[in-house]
């Protein structure tokens, strides 16, 4: 799971809809990939991010980002490259996503979050 996905994903339980963002990330194992820098993609993703949540999760992994993002930052090549790296190259291989609202934990194994629900949890 990449940090982009973490920034968009919410608890799968219906009862949590809307008040469950972001899922708390416990990363046990991380790999760093080496995908080619894509400026257009990175710029487009910025519009979708919850910056506060992204800032916090990056910080927890040892990457310090500016508190706020200004429109001019889109032209800051060095920052865009760092953001591309954080969004697309950092892959959480194993760990847990925990809903801060209901406490439900979703395990991440081999980089794949398991969002399956138990029968009793189904919508």
């Amino acid at each position: 799971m990449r940090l982009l996905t973490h920034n968009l994903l919410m608890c799968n339980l219906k009862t949590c809809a809307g008040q469950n963002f972001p899922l708390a990330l416990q990363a046990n194992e991380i790999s760093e990939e080496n995908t080619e820098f894509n400026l257009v993609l990175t710029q487009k993703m910025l519009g979708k991010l919850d910056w506060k949540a992204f800032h916090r999760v990056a910080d927890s992994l040892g990457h310090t980002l500016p508190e706020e993002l200004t429109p001019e930052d889109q032209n800051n090549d060095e920052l865009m490259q760092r953001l591309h790296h954080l969004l697309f190259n950092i892959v959480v291989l194993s760990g847990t996503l925990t809903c801060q609202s209901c406490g439900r934990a979703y395990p991440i194994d081999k980089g794949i979050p398991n969002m399956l629900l138990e029968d009793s949890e189904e919508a």
Partner: protein
Amino acid sequence: MSRPENVAPAQYYYNSEEAEKYTSNSRIIEVQAHMSQRAIELLQLPSSGCLVLDLGCGSGLSGSELSDSGHFWIGMDISPSMLLVALDREAEGDLMLADIGNGFHFAPGCFDGCISISAIQWLCNAEKASHNPYKRFSNLFNSLYKALARGARAVFQFYPAHPQQIEIITQSAVKAGFMADMVIDFPESTKAKKYYLILHTGSKSGYMNPMPLNDEDEVKVSKRKIVKKEKHVKCKNKSKEWIINKKERQRKQGKEIRPDTKYTGRKRHDRF
């Protein structure tokens, strides 16, 4: 031809053996690639560098086409084995183990588009007593409507078992707020005929109305192939006993065969 969704629930049908077989069959690779390209064309995404959801992404055959078109995708599938094959193939998208019939929750409006290739016919089956296909389609479309950006579209290629299924699926999408269109490519051919359900979250202004493909030559080619195939397939109705016996014979031949389960040869219900 038997329909896989009538054999066993997807997460059992696509076990590691079947997932490998599926992803190394050159005919399947080609057909899935074509349909995925067609679905991407029908999406009419505004630019490159979009974020696209792939529902029932499997081993990433459909996702590869999204990557090749310069988009990033997040894929969901219910079969761990298919997802593991996607990892082996170094799929470029992000993967998630999930049942799309249960719905999903993402930041509202975050996706620029969605494709789903050869997957949603699986939702027509009730796999458990608690499953209600109507409910599951409504979970799916309600979640999707929220997750898509306003003006974004979703394209579903699927294999309806009968016309009412199309009706029910379309109605369910409309109930969730979508405007729905259907494009049928190669309508004259039993084999090449393909259904694409196009869902719009907003007005259709700016969307170029697509023309169904109708290539005479392609139809002829596939017709010839069908005639040949049908001779082969003329099989008797396969009873549970017949299947178990056949599996036993194959095991004796030293082949690796899926263990018999309560799903083996079970006739499964279609609640529509």
